[in-house]
């Protein structure tokens, strides 16, 4: 094979030399996945009445909101004409998966997440609106949306409606991230993306990443606030993480085995890519360190009895590895899908820039932004109540 341009191996259609979707587009499904996963974890408590994960219920909702608010930003930053992005809502092209995703996003944000959080916190918002002075008081007053009725009957209605929204919310969360998978999976031109497995793989990896994120955030906030972590909650959450992970890994392996066995015209090209350019991110980071090791660690907790400190250590390590692995998975899909030519005759490379519009720096900022939002949300709407039934104010 010949090399004509730096970073290019073999033959690519000339327009393919430059990658179109950068690390920002990697960030986008990663963040959306955290949202969907966190919400599904929260729903477990509400709908299936799993008492053990109750301490993470509100935290999971706030985490989902913090990440959901940031989710469109990497896309916005990536567009050639961000000022025209509203056209996607005003004049949507109905056959476009991307256009329809805009509406799913809005539905999920406005009709599910914001409403559920508002109903769940309404009583506290009203109490705080009445007792907090100054600017903060005005924020709470605004958040009441003018409704100060917190009679038992009214709260009972809130609870019923909240439960209904959660029930609607679960398929919505499935839709939210499954649909992200469809955006990639429906591109028939790209054999690395085009598979009906994509939505379901995206969904389960989302659940995995969301549970891992909530687990870590819960331990981190408890640590910062000096609160005792609820071990039963941690153990149960970690167990769910393991189950979700096993399904996710099973699905991904199914996809892999299917590709290897079928070995269609694209196989040689994709196989070569996985063994060269994607080796570190796919084989090492995603499969070995991001999946097999955390699954092994989480399974170990189920098999042998370990001390509380050891379990916590395992949860931190496996949680972090999980997030790295899922990020690597998004990277391998988005970047990997652009490294080979659709002629199957060559490869290009992705050079990440640093302080440019689509570089590493904005990516890091966008990844930290949800944590800043979450910090503000936790201050504004504390997720835990103390013994007396009042919210713990930190």
């Amino acid at each position, binding site marked *: *094979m*010949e090399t*004509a*341009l730096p970073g290019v191996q073999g*033959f*690519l*259609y*000339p*327009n*393919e*030399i*430059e990658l*179109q*979707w950068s690390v920002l587009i990697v960030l986008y499904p990663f963040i959306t996945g955290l949202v969907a996963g966190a919400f599904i974890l929260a729903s477990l408590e509400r709908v299936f009445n799993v008492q053990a994960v109750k301490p993470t219920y509100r935290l999971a909702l706030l985490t989902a909101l913090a990440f959901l608010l940031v989710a469109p930003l990497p*896309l916005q930053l*990536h*567009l*050639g*004409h*961000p000022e*025209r*992005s509203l*056209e*996607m809502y005003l*004049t*949507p*092209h109905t*056959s*476009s*998966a*991307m*256009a329809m995703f*805009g509406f799913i996003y809005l539905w999920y944000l406005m009709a599910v997440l914001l409403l559920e959080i508002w109903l769940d916190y309404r009583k506290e918002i009203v109490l705080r609106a009445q007792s907090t002075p100054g600017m903060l008081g005005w924020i709470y007053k605004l958040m009441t949306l003018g409704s100060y009725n917190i009679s038992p009957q009214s709260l009972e209605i809130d609870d019923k409606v909240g439960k209904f929204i959660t029930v609607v919310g679960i398929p919505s969360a499935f839709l939210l991230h499954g649909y992200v998978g469809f955006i990639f999976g*429906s*591109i*028939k*031109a*790209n054999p690395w993306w085009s598979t009906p497995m994509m939505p379901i793989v995206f969904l389960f990896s989302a659940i995995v990443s969301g549970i891992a994120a909530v687990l870590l955030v819960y331990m981190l906030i408890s640590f910062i606030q000096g609160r005792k972590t609820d071990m039963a909650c941690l153990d149960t959450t970690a167990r769910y993480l393991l189950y979700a992970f096993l399904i996710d890994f099973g699905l991904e392996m199914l996809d892999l085995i299917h590709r290897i066995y079928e070995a269609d015209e694209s196989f040689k090209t994709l196989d070569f890519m996985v063994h060269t350019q994607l080796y570190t991110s796919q084989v090492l980071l995603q499969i070995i360190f991001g999946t097999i090791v955390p699954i092994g660690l989480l399974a170990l907790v189920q098999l042998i009895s370990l001390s509380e400190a050891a379990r916590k250590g395992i949860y931190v390590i496996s949680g972090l590895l999980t997030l790295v692995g899922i990020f690597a998975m998004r990277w391998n899909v988005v970047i990997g*899908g*652009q490294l080979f*030519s*659709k*002629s*199957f*005759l060559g490869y290009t490379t992705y050079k990440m820039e640093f302080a440019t519009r689509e570089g590493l720096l904005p990516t890091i900022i966008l990844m930290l932004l949800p944590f800043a939002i979450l910090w503000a949300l936790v201050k504004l709407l504390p997720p835990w109540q103390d013994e007396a039934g009042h919210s713990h104010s930190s």
Partner: protein
Amino acid sequence: MTSKSDRREFLRKSSKFLLLSGAASVAYASVAEGQPEKAPNYRMHDHWWGMVIDIDLCIGCGNCVRADKAENGVPLGPKYFRTWVERYHIPPGDLQHPEKEELPVVDSENGGFDGFKEKYKKGDGSKNFFVPKLCNQCSHSPCTQVCPVGATFESPDGVVLVDREYCLGCRYCIHACPYGCRYLHPETETADKCSLCYHRIVRGLTTACCEACPTGARRLVDLKDPNDPVHEFLKMHKVHVLKPQMATGAKVYYNALDGSVR
């Protein structure tokens, strides 16, 4: 003397008026302005545009690539093309072991803009040919399907166009095209692709690439025009479209297309 001169003047002016009236005067004005004539009678529904490319006639001169870049303001350099030319070199394979068949060696330095330097020797048992590429003007175009705002659309006369005043620059269409025919224009930051020289064909002209092709390897065809020689050509030749498995309804037909071309 005066009356004679007046009469002569009158005759000169009136004959000029008669000669240059109607279509003639319009044409004269256009020629004087250096513009092709307007096409007020162009009706989109009367046409269905496509192209026929004869691989055997392409000599890889790169005229089409240069003409296209000049006509359509395509950025120079090796990353942006509305049309380009690929050179295929197929080494002699081991026919008893087709599974070990060597991949074709393809090159397209600067998209063939500068032509191709002689590289392969005659009589070495290899097969060598050029393949001009451009947007296939698909009638079920995947790029149109995925555009979130409809900035990419299929015109009623069968040309896939991009509205650069409307395109978001999300690049979903670039990924959706199986043939690599799209790029993001670095100045407008919108998707760009071959428009089949739409501004020319509605005025009755052919595309810049076809006009510049010295061998007639590329021919603009109107598949709705019963008098277009394309119908006879398609009947008499074994033609193929690129990647038919993609089912995009491609309308760029290749004559003598080798199975190795992707």
